[in-house]
């Protein structure tokens, strides 16, 4: 056996990630994005309750293109975090633990998030 410490490969570009791993890291990333969105969201709620004029201006602002793009990112973040979170809660209850089940539910999370995201984009 060779002496010395075991070889380490942390080059992410060379690692093939299972879909469950992708769902997991996206769950963390979406969580961070949602956290960063908290102050803006409460401010938006503040404006929506302040006066009819502020309510209308908020509506116009939310419908502007750059804000719509941001909204798409945040809505996806919410959807993915929610669905991946539910998947984690089910795993806590020992539901979906086998590799095939875990893979299937991971794909369901990704597909479900995108599906509802498109529904949101179409509706709004």
């Amino acid at each position, binding site marked *: 056996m060779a002496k010395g410490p075991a070889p380490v490969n942390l080059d992410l570009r060379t690692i093939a990630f299972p879909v469950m791993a992708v769902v997991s890291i996206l769950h*963390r990333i979406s*969580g*961070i994005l*949602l*956290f960063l969105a*908290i*102050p803006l969201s*409460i401010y938006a*709620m*503040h404006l*929506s*309750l302040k*006066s*009819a004029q502020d*309510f*209308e201006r908020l509506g116009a602002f939310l419908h502007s293109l750059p804000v719509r793009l941001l909204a798409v990112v945040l809505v996806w973040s*919410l959807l993915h975090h*929610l669905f991946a*979170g*539910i998947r984690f*809660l089910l795993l*806590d209850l020992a539901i979906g633990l086998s590799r095939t089940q875990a893979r299937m539910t991971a794909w369901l999370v990704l597909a479900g998030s995108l599906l509802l995201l498109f529904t949101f984009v179409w509706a709004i």
Partner: protein
Amino acid sequence: MLTSGLKAWVWQRLSAIYLAVFLIWLAAHMWFFPTAGFTGWRAWLAQPVISMAFALFFLSLMVHAWVGVRDVVMDYVHSLVTRVAILTSVLLLLLAMAAWAFLLLAGIDYRTA
């Protein structure tokens, strides 16, 4: 310092359940019974049960966000001093956000809404 992660895990799951139920309910409510403009939105939110549900939402959100951000910081920030500085700032921010949200809800005039 030896602590178990059990309390944080429980709070994260409990807050997650309320957040999930609330958000799904809110989305469904707004889809099927959207509020009508400024007056409709204010009047709806001014109802005590709705206000309470939102208050619990913001409380759960801060608890959930705290556990989540703390997990991320613990994973990536290894300097104790930096970690304490970041976590303290985040904690203050979340408390301030909760206070703001509660003040917003309390400020809706029940008499004129």
